[in-house]
């Protein structure tokens, strides 16, 4: 099973390695679809915020700065909030800029959540910026971003 390759380094290594091994083109060439761009991420963010101002702060993004494998990256987003019926986090939205698709998840909480914190595992196609945005009960938006480095697995499988 081959995951989609967006990084040119992996494409180069694969072509170079494949040519060395058989002397002809390798069996598996990933034709990349259009990649996400920072513009796509901005559009996705605007869909959530409706163009409202987004302030930095209150949100914490825990994600390894150097990822062991881009197929499964543990991520925790937490928001500082009293989580009372009048002051709570309504939702958390996570975005990325280089996957084929800009969204990494939308999480809908409520005053009964107790703590505004979610954990999940995401896929990251390449080294890129991740943005987490929280929507509070008063309608305000808060954000944080993190840069993540994604390396390649050394001995990968080839489709035989």
């Amino acid at each position, binding site marked *: 099973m081959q995951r*989609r390759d967006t990084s040119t380094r992996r494409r180069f290594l694969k072509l170079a390695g494949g040519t060395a091994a058989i002397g002809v083109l390798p069996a598996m060439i990933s034709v990349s679809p259009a990649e996400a761009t920072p513009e796509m991420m901005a559009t996705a963010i605007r869909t959530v915020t409706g163009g409202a101002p987004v302030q930095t702060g209150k949100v914490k993004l825990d994600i390894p700065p150097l990822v062991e494998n881009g197929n499964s990256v543990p991520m925790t987003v937490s928001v500082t909030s009293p989580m009372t019926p009048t002051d709570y986090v309504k939702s958390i939205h996570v975005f990325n800029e280089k996957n084929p698709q800009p*969204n*990494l*998840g939308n999480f*809908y909480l*409520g005053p009964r*959540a*107790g703590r505004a914190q*979610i954990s999940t595992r*995401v896929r990251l196609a390449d080294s890129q910026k991740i943005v987490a945005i929280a929507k509070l009960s008063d309608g305000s938006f808060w954000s944080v971003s993190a840069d993540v480095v994604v390396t390649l697995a050394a001995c990968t499988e080839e489709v035989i």
Partner: protein
Amino acid sequence: MAAALINVPKKAKNGDVIEIKTLMSHIMETGFRHTTSGVVIPRDIITSFTCRFEGEEIFRADLFPGTAANPFISFFTVASKSGKFDFEWIGDNGFSETASASITVE
């Protein structure tokens, strides 16, 4: 296929903030991969996860191709009374799985 692994504390005190962890078996096929002949492998993902306590929604998540296979989701809720949590995963190709767990709150 084993559906899910759920971790809900069996007991809690009224007002405790408890963590609920869920793990669901699913390939989460992105729809961006190709076979060697260039044919796209169609998307097949879980799109939505919902948790209800005694019938009332307490947490919901939208999932995307960017969610890793065998989705792991953990979140928090305030323990207020004894009762049942119901979990539901819905996705492409009519995917629908449920699970439940009970808690005793003193």
